[in-house]
């Protein structure tokens, strides 16, 4: 799928465009894997279409145009709904519209940009926000990003998403369990959740899937002897 249109920006612009296109596709794959509503068209956008849509006359990408919103599917809502309890007989799903923003600044992303992003997320009442930058962001910006009460803000670098890590053959399939499935698992094995093997929230796959503390994922591996082997991880 090589670009056949060169519009003047030259090799450098072309390279940047291609890299961004790959990031863009990974972002859509990520949203789809997390359970958001994403159309096949969006998932499999070709480089040319992408270029037509998001390139400026010089051939460089226009990041301010690149914003994504997606709504969770019913299936995802189910997975994010806590079990009914005495206090809350009808719990609401703890997920909502997600917003993805590509940061325009090519260097020095600090609290200023993050505050602007937090503001957008808060104002438009998005449940989750993903902030994608070209360079690492400053430590205080990281802290600021995670400190929005009631909302979840994540950060990725463009280069982290060049390749979809979950498509690698050595990465087993991770499936998030719903609260009900988790309860059944714990009952079946007569465990407390703290007795499960663990996984960090900062784990690359956990970050990809946007896992939260306390969730349990089922990891399905291929096994030479048993065909498939499932193990579970408690996210901490």
């Amino acid at each position, binding site marked *: 799928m090589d670009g056949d249109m060169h519009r003047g920006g030259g090799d450098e612009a072309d390279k940047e465009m291609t890299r961004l296109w790959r990031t863009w596709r990974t972002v859509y794959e990520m949203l789809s894997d997390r359970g958001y509503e994403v159309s096949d068209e969006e998932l499999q956008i070709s480089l040319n279409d992408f270029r037509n849509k998001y390139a400026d006359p010089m051939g460089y990408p226009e990041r301010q145009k690149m914003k994504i919103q997606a709504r969770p599917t019913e299936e995802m809502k189910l997975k994010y709904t806590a079990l009914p309890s005495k206090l809350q007989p009808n719990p609401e799903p703890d997920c909502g519209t997600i917003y993805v923003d590509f940061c325009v600044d090519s260097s*020095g992303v600090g609290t200023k940009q993050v505050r602007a992003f937090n503001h957008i997320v808060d104002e438009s009442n998005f449940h989750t926000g993903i902030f994608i930058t070209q360079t690492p962001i400053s430590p205080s910006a990281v802290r600021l990003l995670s400190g929005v009460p009631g909302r979840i803000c994540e950060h990725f670098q463009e280069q982290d998403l060049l390749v979809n890590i979950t498509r690698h053959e050595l990465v087993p399939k991770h499936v998030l369990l719903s609260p009900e499935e988790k309860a059944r698992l714990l009952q079946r094995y007569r465990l407390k959740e703290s007795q499960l093997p663990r996984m960090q929230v900062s784990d690359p796959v956990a970050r990809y899937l946007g896992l939260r503390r306390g969730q349990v994922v089922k990891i399905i591996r291929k096994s030479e002897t048993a065909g498939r082997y499932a193990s579970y991880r408690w996210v901490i």
Partner: protein
Amino acid sequence: MAPSQGPSKSALKTSLPSAYAAVNAEQPQPDLNTYLSPSQEEQEKYLQGRPKATPHHLGIALQHAHQIQAQKDAEEMILDRTVELLAIPADSSADPAAPSTEDIQAFKSALVPFRPTDYDNYITERNYEDLCGYGLCPRENRKAVANAKGGQGQGQTFHFKYGAKGSGPGGRGRSMDIVSREKLEKWCSDECAERALFIRVQLAEEPVWERRADDMSVLNILLLEEARARREKQPQPQPQSQGESSSSAAVVAGMKDLKIQDPQRSRELAMERGDNAPATRDGRVDVTIKEKEHGPESSAAAPRMRPEDAMGGSIEGYVPQEQRDKRSSEQHPEDEGDLLDQI
């Protein structure tokens, strides 16, 4: 639940609120009480859920919870301060060598809870805003890249070229940065670098939530200019004392004054080591060192010869072969003969 109150309260005795009070002196006290003591119902619920738990456990759990909460609050405060500090100096023509008193006040009071790492973050943050890393300087940080591209710029100072002519990329010779670019681009000038780093060395390594309220060393941070002014005032008495000490009599007198344990000197030494007698301050644990008493008669006696030591004795219960033979032959000289007969 009256008895549960007692121990939990005593376990709550921590130095944190006091440390906080000093830091937040100018701000109204956050409602510490709301999270310092959970309601009666919550306490009961905690104890009911755990049949073996006692109010003492509750107290310990609470203490740890407060520590974590205090830590989170402190980190948040530092973040807020970092963002606030980006706004000063408000006047874009301010002189970093002689900043306005309000700016100095704001700068110093905001820096109190900072650790050197927090300060570094703050500098990065300022650089990202295209500001000099020194908090009281309104100028832009210098850009070595731009200068290098322009040709003969200031940035070239920290850049040297080597290799034959025509070698390297572009035929301009190989080049190398002596100082890493990030380091160089933090400041607008060397003076500002000095000023900023002078502040950095005064910050305490300890996080705020572990500091004591009476830790004065951090509470008065000096700007480089202030420190210089102070140093210039001091040296007057010095030449006088030097003149005295040059005479040999004074040296002898000084020698007589030398002591191994001079409280003044040892305190200075302790300061230098960064060790300021934590046991004496009111910490979380009350430590009192009690020496074991022993009278003059209990001193150990010198070892004496015992009869079994004549042969050298056993080695942890094992008697070497030679000695065993000797000993057995001494004890039963006839045994050996009997054995031989049987064979």
